[in-house]
């Protein structure tokens, strides 16, 4: 291993070389996943809007949602949007509870039209979008896992090693300083990256299971609600995990930008990633 004290770059003159980074299967499944997830989020919020409240347990206790978006009429044909979380009540007019519909007029709706697919209020179309992209996401995810085990990507590149675990404190410090290696070390995922990717894969699996729990037919076969403490809890967990993945996405995009936007994105499109290697003539004592 090269030394960790430098700012990631190799000492002495270096030049850039493009090295292979992401396999074709990883790249294709990654971008399909992005499209499917975005569509699932938007159509999921359209479905949520049909009954913009969430509960714990097996059945709905209509008086005690833990999250609810409502609209109350105000003078002048206006609507005031409320978002209740636990015991707290926030006025969220314009975004949550009440916001302009596609005709521009105030409408009682959980999430606003720019966060739902379709933008107009229609549970039926939201379901059509959701199921289509849900199966796309599942098939794509299965392909990702199958390729990942078959070509060794998952155990080799994503599973943290013992050495990785020791590096956690060090990686936290360098991440906090937004210092990223530019040399040969950059060809591997660091341990925080591995944990974030592993975490998001796990989140997708639980999210999908919670979604399947909402199917009364599958419940009859597998008693899935027992896994999630009831069908209404499963609906809540499905919702929470979707937003957890949005949080991952925000962090993910931030890291992509912070560690070299174009280099990263190119590596996820063409598969090639630029690293800095010492000039061969003055290579000194650095490992290649």
């Amino acid at each position, binding site marked *: 291993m090269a030394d960790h004290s430098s700012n990631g770059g190799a000492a002495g003159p270096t030049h850039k070389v493009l090295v292979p980074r992401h396999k074709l299967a990883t790249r294709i499944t990654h971008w399909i996943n992005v499209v499917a997830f975005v569509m699932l989020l938007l159509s999921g919020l359209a479905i*949520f809007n049909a009954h913009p409240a969430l509960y714990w347990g*097996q059945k709905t206790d209509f008086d005690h949602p833990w999250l609810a978006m409502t609209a109350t009429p105000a003078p002048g044909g206006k609507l005031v949007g409320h978002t209740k979380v636990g015991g707290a009540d926030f006025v969220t007019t314009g975004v949550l509870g009440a916001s302009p519909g596609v005709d521009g007029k105030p409408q009682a709706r959980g999430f606003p039209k720019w966060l739902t697919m379709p*933008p107009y209020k229609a549970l039926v*179309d939201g379901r059509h979008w959701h*199921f289509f992209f849900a199966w796309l996401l599942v098939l794509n995810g299965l392909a990702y896992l199958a390729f990942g085990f078959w070509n060794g990507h998952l155990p080799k590149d994503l599973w943290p090693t013992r050495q990785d675990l020791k590096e956690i404190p060090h990686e936290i410090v360098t991440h906090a300083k937004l210092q990223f290696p530019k040399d040969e070390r950059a060809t591997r995922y660091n341990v925080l990256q591995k944990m974030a990717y592993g975490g998001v894969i796990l989140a997708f699996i639980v999210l999908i299971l919670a979604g399947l729990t909402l199917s*009364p*037919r*599958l419940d009859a076969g597998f008693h899935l609600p027992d896994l999630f403490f009831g069908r*209404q809890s499963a609906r809540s967990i499905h919702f929470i995990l979707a937003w957890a993945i949005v949080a991952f996405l925000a962090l993910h995009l931030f890291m992509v930008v912070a560690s070299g936007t174009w280099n990263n994105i190119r590596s996820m499109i063409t598969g090639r990633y630029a690293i800095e290697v010492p000039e061969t003539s003055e290579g000194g004592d650095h490992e290649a």
Partner: protein
Amino acid sequence: MKPERRGFLSGLVLSTSALVLAGCNKIANSSAVDHVLTSAEAFNRRMGHFFVRPKSLAREYSRADISRFFKPNGSIAPDNPADASSTPAYRAHVASNFADWRLVIDGLVEHPQTLSIADLKAMPAKAQITRHDCVEGWSSIAEWRGVQLARLLQKAQLKPNAKYIVFHCADAIDKNDDGSPLFYYESIDLEDAFHPQTILAYAMNGQPLPVPHGAPLRLRVERQLGYKQAKYVMRVEAVDSYKRYGQGKGGYWEDNGYEWYAGI
């Protein structure tokens, strides 16, 4: 950043998002796109049938799990003359406490039936405490008591070409284009029709079925969503195809775009 450049940029962002939004509306409204999207329904159905055996039972709950408030949905007051779903015929049944009401079982059957509530109650009863999942996302639990549909169909004896069971209802859920009442209807296949938990229920939580929940008789088909649970059932018809009713999609909500397979 110079103000005009910022103005241009925010203008660009605003106009693109407006375009995207308009585009989303267009795309969502396009029937070609809808055709592609609804192909997922077949997948839902195949997966449901691949992973879950025909006779697997929906979970049953205990008395303690029964919802204090079970939300009635769809038509909820066909007994009220002011309600759009109401008809004089249904109101007359309510007024006479369903004394003259008869369930008709006909279509592709050898022995058509005409049964009163008393006839139904005289048959072996099936009771179950199950969860009702509305397509909107909420769930309520209630105890239902009624007659297994399988028992009624055995009595009527299906002809070999019968493939589906259509339920014709008394509530005018909507209007036809000519203004005439459009009655609720639903349909299920024979796998669900002969499922042990598929019943025509005349009682809910130990009481005669209340009007908001479909008095005097409603369908319970426990492995599907709420809109399959036809209320105010008047006639049970065995058919080889449900295409000739409504818009041909097999039910009122199906005619409005919802999936015929409501197992998810």
